[in-house]
């Protein structure tokens, strides 16, 4: 299971992403362990599979309204479904890739895969519990979910 210090790596990565890419810091809530079932997701979810010295999944899930504002902050003018998918994948990829600063290069990340819809089913890794890192940015809420062996 993931250790507290490792969780901190993802919290810092999330903080850094919003500070730099969105030029506006997010407020990161206290991470919590999901004790039953799978965490709920928002309209768009970007997933990164982790292999190598750790196994599992890291995903970023956010509502369309938040992604729209994030795109505006990035000077984007295309708010299509494809661009939303691209953005959640890129956020998940960036935070997961940045985690290699602490986890090292054997923390192997996949290219992003994206699910759309708040009923989307996230694949689960047996025996692995999910930690949720709540993200509040402007008036929107999103989550980074880390489930690692």
């Amino acid at each position, binding site marked *: 299971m993931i250790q507290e210090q490792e969780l901190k790596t993802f919290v810092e990565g999330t903080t*850094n*992403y919003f500070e*730099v*890419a969105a030029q506006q810091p997010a407020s990161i809530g206290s991470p919590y362990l999901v004790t039953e079932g799978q965490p709920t997701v928002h309209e768009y979810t970007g997933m990164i599979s982790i292999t190598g010295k750790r196994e599992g999944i890291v995903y970023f899930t956010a509502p369309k309204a938040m992604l729209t504002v994030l*795109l505006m902050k*990035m*000077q*984007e003018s295309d708010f299509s479904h*494809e*661009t939303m998918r*691209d*953005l959640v*994948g*890129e956020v998940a*990829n*960036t*935070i*997961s*890739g*940045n*985690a*290699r*600063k602490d*986890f*090292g*290069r054997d*923390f192997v*990340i*996949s*290219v992003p895969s994206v699910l759309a819809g708040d009923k989307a089913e996230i694949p689960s890794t047996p025996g692995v519990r999910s930690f949720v890192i709540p993200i509040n940015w402007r008036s929107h809420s999103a989550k980074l979910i880390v489930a690692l062996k």
Partner: protein
Amino acid sequence: MNAVTNGNRRAYKLMIVDDSNIMRRRIERSQTFEEIELVGTASNGLEALEMFKKMDPDVVTMDLTMPQMDGIECIENLVKIKPAVRILVISALADKATAVEAMEKGANGFLNKPFTDRQLNEAIAELIR
């Protein structure tokens, strides 16, 4: 560097390689060098190789984690085709070993995502000056 001279100014042909369309547009929009002309974009290493052979760019920005052919393999191939090409890796992968490997394969600079416009322009300036 073997770039084309355009009047009194040297002109550099740029190719942007990243599997994210948002990132490709971001890099194109944020780079402020008048002497740089975008000649192509690609969303994976294989596409980049094809584009590279057609457009013969002088400067390449290269993502690493991409489908079909990753950035490290692509860098190796590009350098074999044109040893003088200048390659700036722009990647989320933040471990030192990856940066060292990219440089050993022929990259000339490394910029971590996420990045500011200023960081991008400084990194490109290092590459072409």
